[in-house]
């Protein structure tokens, strides 16, 4: 990619086409085209375009659930989309191709530009043109001081203004000139910015390849240890090695949540936090930490985040034989902001038939004929569960993995009451319901809370951060540092010295050139003896040539 200097036009176009060229010429031609600014521009626009589908179609590694949902809803489109990689745009072949080409184009430009810049740094500012008055800013003054004195003063003034000066070019008592240039860092900023882009892209790719992200639901009062089996979902980078998981363990001691109790925002959470005790390694001393949104537990190589919470009703199931078939909390997943939660309870140990339940937990139960049962508040004020019961074969013996939030009812049938309708268990804490046909009893003992934690690691994030910060610094340099050349020519005329100062901006958005020339002149020789002779200020709306202090400048129109 040709890095824009934003002040020069692009170099002459490379030859138009590979007409009867050998492989070497063809390669060279292709390389030149790839690293040309036009190509870079098109690649940039293409990259923007290629990013769009990923914001429209659900992405596998971000919202896997929504992807499967989408696939179910669009059975004909799904295979086409799959083949096009639209469910994982950002690691698809075509997306990678664009940014790899962009990277090559970028590197192919930076490297030669570094050499050019190196030579430019060592070159002296060009000597004064013969006709200084043709330059955009030009002012003169006459002073009685000796020529070499004025020249020496000019050198000091320009040096103080952070100009770089050309070596003495044979000036003497008859006069001479000083050539000066500044703004060398502009191109350095430009190169730094583009190098930083490469660094950030590499660091990002590294983090994607070697990092991981996993989520787990932990009941309050229970613990979590950092191994693959403990995760409910786990998204490793393609080069991630599970052996490198840190042996972290933690216990959720307490959880607090506060909701707004009244007003239009009723039910919105104010804050939630979990007190955890953790050990970095099994042998290290336990430490305490309060997990909150925006207050993660950040350790070396692993970070723990609190990202959600919910309810787990506690139930006791006795089977038809009177044996204890299940007792404990069952994690229900919140379905909306009121925390009406859906969950499934599988009781494979029930005799004579396996039992399954699915239904809702309502932290603050309410009922209307229109809506049926629902929750009016996310906190627990009037808890209730409403379950449907299934009997038969849960299908857990086949060895296929099952979701704990889904009941496989292929070989089950709904439990029905004496009236033939679905048997529904509506219970409040302490209630006990007897299932029909002597299948057993269910007791709603109470409820617990759970928290959802996310454990993740993105190696290389420090490098990425350093990269973007350096990139920003470089960018500001390349946008705001002005390249400017200033020449001072001194001519002895009789017993007076004629001083000319001229300036040339090498950036399009230069500003205050005339002011600077005036300032240099005043410091070198005294007050100017005439108005600017060079290019007159354009129509009063040209901000680059008209100084800001121009009287009533903004009223000229």
């Amino acid at each position, binding site marked *: 990619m*040709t890095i*824009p200097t*934003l*002040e020069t*036009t*692009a170099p002459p176009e490379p030859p138009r086409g590979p007409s009867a060229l050998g492989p070497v010429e063809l390669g060279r031609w292709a390389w030149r085209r790839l690293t040309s*600014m*036009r190509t*870079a*521009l098109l690649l*940039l*626009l293409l990259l*923007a375009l290629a*990013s*769009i589908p*990923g*914001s429209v179609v*659900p*992405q596998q590694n*971000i*919202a896997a659930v*929504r992807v499967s949902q989408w696939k179910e809803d669009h059975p004909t489109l799904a295979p086409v989309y799959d083949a096009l990689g639209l469910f994982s745009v950002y690691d698809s072949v075509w997306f990678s191709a664009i940014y790899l080409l962009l990277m090559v184009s970028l590197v192919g430009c930076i490297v030669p530009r570094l050499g050019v810049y190196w030579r430019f740094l060592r070159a002296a500012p060009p000597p004064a043109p013969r006709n200084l008055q043709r330059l955009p800013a030009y002012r003169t003054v006459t002073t009685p001081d000796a020529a070499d004195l004025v020249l020496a003063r000019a050198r000091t003034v320009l040096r103080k203004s952070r100009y770089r000066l050309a070596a003495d070019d044979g000036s003497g008592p008859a006069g001479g000139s000083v050539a000066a240039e500044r703004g060398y860092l502009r191109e350095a900023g430009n190169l730094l910015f583009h190098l930083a882009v490469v660094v950030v892209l590499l660091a*990002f790719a590294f983090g994607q390849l070697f*990092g991981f*992200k996993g989520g787990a639901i932990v009941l309050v009062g229970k613990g979590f240890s950092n191994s693959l089996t403990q995760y409910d979902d786990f998204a490793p980078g393609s080069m991630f090695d599970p052996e490198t998981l840190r042996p972290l363990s933690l216990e959720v001691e307490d959880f607090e949540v506060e909701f*707004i109790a009244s*007003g*239009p*925002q009723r039910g*919105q959470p104010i*804050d939630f936090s979990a007190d955890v005790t953790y050990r970095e390694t099994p042998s290290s001393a336990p430490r305490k930490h309060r997990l*909150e*949104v*925006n207050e*993660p537990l950040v350790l070396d190589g692993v*970070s723990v*985040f609190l990202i959600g919470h919910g309810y787990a009703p506690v139930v006791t199931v006795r089977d038809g034989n009177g044996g204890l078939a299940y007792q404990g909390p069952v994690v229900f997943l919140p379905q909306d902001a009121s925390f009406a939660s859906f969950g499934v309870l599988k009781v494979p140990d029930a005799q004579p038939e396996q039992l399954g339940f699915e239904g809702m937990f309502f932290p603050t139960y309410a009922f209307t004929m229109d809506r049926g049962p629902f929750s009016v508040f996310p906190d627990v004020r009037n808890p209730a569960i409403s379950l449907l019961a299934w009997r038969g074969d849960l299908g857990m013996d086949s060895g296929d993995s099952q979701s704990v939030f889904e009941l496989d009812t292929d070989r089950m049938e709904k439990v029905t009451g004496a009236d033939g309708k679905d048997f529904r268990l509506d219970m409040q804490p302490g209630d006990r319901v007897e299932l029909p046909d002597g299948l057993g009893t269910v007791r709603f003992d109470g409820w617990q809370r759970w928290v959802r934690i*996310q454990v993740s690691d*993105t190696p290389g*994030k420090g490098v*990425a*951060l350093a990269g*973007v*910060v350096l990139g*920003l610094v470089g*960018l*500001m340099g390349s946008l*705001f540092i002005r390249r400017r050349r200033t020449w001072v020519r001194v001519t002895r005329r009789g017993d007076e010295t004629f001083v000319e100062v001229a300036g040339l901006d090498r950036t*399009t*958005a230069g500003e205050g050139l005339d002011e600077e020339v005036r300032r240099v002149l005043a410091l070198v020789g005294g007050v100017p003896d005439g108005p600017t002779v060079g290019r007159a200020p354009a*129509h*009063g*709306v*040209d*901000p*680059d040539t008209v100084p*800001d202090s121009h009287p009533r400048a*903004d*009223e000229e*129109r």
Partner: protein
Amino acid sequence: MSTADFASFSDNAIMFASIVYVLALIAHVVEWSLSLTVREPAAVRAATSDSSVDVAPPPREETAALRIDTAGRIGVALTAVAALLHLAGVVSRAFATEPARVPWGNMYEFTVTGALGVTLVYLALLRRMWLRWMGLFVTAFEVVVLMAANLLLEQQAGQLVPALHSYWLVIHVGTAILATGAFAVGALASLVFLLQERATRRGARPGLLAMFPDSDALDRLAYRVNAVGFPLWTFAALIAGPIWAEHAWGSYWNWDPKEVWAFITWVIYAAYLHARATAGWKGKAAAIIALIGFASLLWNFVGINFFFGAGSMHSYAGS
């Protein structure tokens, strides 16, 4: 004052600001219509008076120029008053909750604060960059945006959702608002630049376009504000955003729709800066790219919230 007092004061101040913006808009409309009626005959006279020795402008034209200028000045003065009211509304909105917070916790607040950003950028650069010609557009923009915010997005001041309890809300969203203000000014300049190019190609006709600066100046103005907006956007979207995301969501880049579109916007503005330095892309093509960039910025702000809602991790900014 109680939080409810602050809330209703904020609503009143925004309402009064809208009214004053309307007055400013009227002043600028007068400015433009006066200049239309004056410039046409002047141009005709210039075309027909080659033989005429008389070059001194008739006094009627001088007073007309004065009246145009006065109308413009009144417009700017009213805009400044409206901006003060607008600012008061935004600031008091911050105190409309207990505890006080930044006034950009939901879409209504972001819209109102962002609109203030546009006015402030305009007023700050007014003298420096000769932006008087923008007055008509800026005031019209403010009137429309404040009205839309009031009718479509109005939301009672409330507490922030837990995810927003972070000082990064100030940094990340604050810089995004500033960048948006700069890009908006740049987009306007690019738009007028394109209109003017088209008019010139079809044979320049004195009239409305004569109110604008010449296309060179417009192009430079667009470049300069976009060159300010771009680093701000880089910081807001690619530095502050990822740091906060790393802090709150556990990874600094999640390909969330809002992130994707912020990235797309960034890439398009990067393309704009490159295009401006490429032969054949300079001028018209670059201006079009800048406008596409601004369109993607607006889409990211409005579209993502409305159409992606729950699918975006940024959904707490929702309507």
